[in-house]
């Protein structure tokens, strides 16, 4: 394993917003290397944006320091400040000038990004007249006018339309391929589109880290898939809670009809944000859930968690979509601080399921091949021994429950 020098490093950082205010972050040690990305997860108000703003240089740590921050940082705030009198063209041109771009290069850069982000029609519209999503695109554009060494995206998917949402992972990949690093926060589950990103989970002032694994390798202790049935209206909250606890939510499937039909319905993935209980899970019949059992009315959610030794070591089912698009160059690492209250937080996590960057939303019908139950009320396929338990994407492809 070759460690590259970090692009940005938070060195024992503490932060609070006032002398008597509570600590938002306590003794946080983190680093992000070139070509890497990290997803910042956690509940509302836990300090995700604070962490991002520290990395961006917007905030100064109360104690500790942020070191090695590169010269060109692109920051997309959670809410773009649309209450400004400039037109899109005036604004982007000014921001480009501030970033040191001038002349025809500036004109061309602005034209390129407005074209790519679908802003060309709004060039002469005032920022204050833009919709939230269009203003968010302007926020993205300003961060990318000069190729950033460190790109920081605070809830970048908020308000974006479908095509632009699909574009975000592509932009992230481009920055990484150019040797930059990307830090992105998300509470809507959109980061399922970034399967090889580290997960930084903020809770109680500390940050736990889960590194992605290399494709084909297995996290220490193996990986288990836990299937949950959740009322459709609670899916978003459950997904957020599970992620905040350090688990990887693979997919969510739309609510099933309760007439016992075992067919699954394709649907958008968890990150699409459309529909309450979209998506499919990757698990096969859960342990203890007999094939053909009636589907539940809740939306199935598949959660990946390191296996614990279990007497019934059932292999995890395969979801073709679960194969990671790309693998990180870092070996499975150990997690950082374990979030409080999550004793089962993984020390390392396997690849996540996710669509290919750029786009394709995985079909939901990948589950339950062979008439497997889409989801047991609470099913655990667990106990895969290290080295033999398949990651999501391998394993039981025929619904028999046998590992491959």
């Amino acid at each position, binding site marked *: 394993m070759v460690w590259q020098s970090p692009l940005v490093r938070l060195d024992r950082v503490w932060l609070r917003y006032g002398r008597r205010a509570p600590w938002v972050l306590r003794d946080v040690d983190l680093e992000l290397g070139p070509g890497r990305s990290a997803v910042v997860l956690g509940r509302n108000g836990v300090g995700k944006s604070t962490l991002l703003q520290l990395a961006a240089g917007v905030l100064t740590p109360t104690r500790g320091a942020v070191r090695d921050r590169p010269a060109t940082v692109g920051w997309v705030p959670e809410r773009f400040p649309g209450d400004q009198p400039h037109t899109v063209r005036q604004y982007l041109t000014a921001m480009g*000038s501030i*970033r040191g771009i001038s002349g025809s290069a500036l004109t061309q850069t602005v034209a390129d990004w407005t074209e790519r982000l679908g802003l060309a029609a709004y060039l002469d519209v005032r920022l204050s007249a833009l919709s939230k999503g269009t203003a968010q695109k302007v926020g993205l554009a300003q961060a990318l006018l000069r190729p950033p060494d460190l790109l920081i995206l605070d809830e970048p998917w908020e308000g974006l339309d479908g095509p632009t949402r699909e574009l975000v992972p592509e932009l992230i990949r481009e920055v990484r391929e150019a040797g930059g690093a990307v830090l992105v926060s998300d509470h809507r589950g959109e980061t399922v589109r970034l399967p090889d990103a580290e997960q930084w989970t903020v809770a109680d002032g500390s940050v736990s880290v889960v590194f992605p694994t290399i494709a084909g390798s297995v996290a220490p202790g193996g990986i288990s898939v836990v299937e949950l049935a959740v009322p459709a209206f609670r899916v978003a909250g459950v997904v957020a809670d599970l992620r905040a606890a350090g688990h990887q939510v693979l997919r969510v499937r739309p609510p099933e009809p309760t007439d016992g039909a075992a067919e699954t319905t394709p649907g958008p993935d968890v990150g699409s944000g459309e529909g309450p209980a979209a998506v499919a899970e990757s698990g096969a019949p859960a342990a203890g859930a007999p094939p053909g059992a009636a589907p539940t009315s809740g939306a199935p959610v598949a959660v990946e968690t390191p296996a614990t030794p279990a007497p019934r070591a059932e292999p995890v089912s395969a979801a073709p979509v679960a194969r990671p698009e790309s693998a990180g160059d870092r070996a499975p690492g150990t997690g950082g601080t374990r979030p409080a209250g999550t004793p089962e937080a993984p020390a390392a996590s396997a690849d996540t399921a996710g669509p290919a960057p750029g786009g394709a939303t995985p079909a939901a019908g990948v589950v339950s091949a062979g008439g497997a139950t889409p989801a047991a009320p609470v099913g655990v396929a667990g106990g895969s021994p290290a080295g033999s338990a398949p990651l999501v994407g391998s394993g039981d492809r025929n619904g028999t429950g046998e590992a491959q």
Partner: protein
Amino acid sequence: MIAMVRMRLGGFVRTARAVPPLVAGLVALVVLHGGAGAEAAEAYGVSAVVLFPILAWQTKLLLDTEPDTQRRLVAVAAGRRSEFVGGLLAAGVVGVALIPLALAVPWLVGGVTAPVRAGELGVGLAIGLWAHLLALPAAVGLGALASRAAVTSPLYGVVILVCGVVGVFVFGLRDSVVPWLVPPVLAVARASAAGPTGAEIALLTGHALLWSAVAIAGYAGLRRRRA
């Protein structure tokens, strides 16, 4: 830096926030000088006193035009120090733009008598320019201290602005025990009326610049705390 200043000024003008202080300044100058018929140096000394609160207010308006998040975006793009200096420079540019008006208006409304001796006009204009240029950095410092970037509440901003201006007028009186506590705006007006000596010019210039530096350092400190 130029791009930053231009963007700030663009926002200030496009939101029409530049208009109220401009109108207020013109009205004050016209009312003050209308038919007064004073010597140029004396008239300009008083103009500088009247313009001080308007320049401070204008600075606050300019710095408050940009949303907080936009200010942070610029800081990420250009560096926090550059963003800090850019805002102050923009305020200075807008203030400097008011000075020619302040020098011209007294002539237009009969506030200044025609020079009796040769060279008197030049001296009067030079003293007037000095008085206004000395008031400007102090006003920018006070306006910056009252801006949203420095204080958490808009109410605090107004209180700082009002107290600052009142303090200049109260503690700047001839018999003040603590004249060094405020910028020497009134002292400059008195010196202009009497004809300042070289030593007075140096002393008052030093006092004004030192006070401005302290105010701007305070502004920087408050911004760091808010960040």
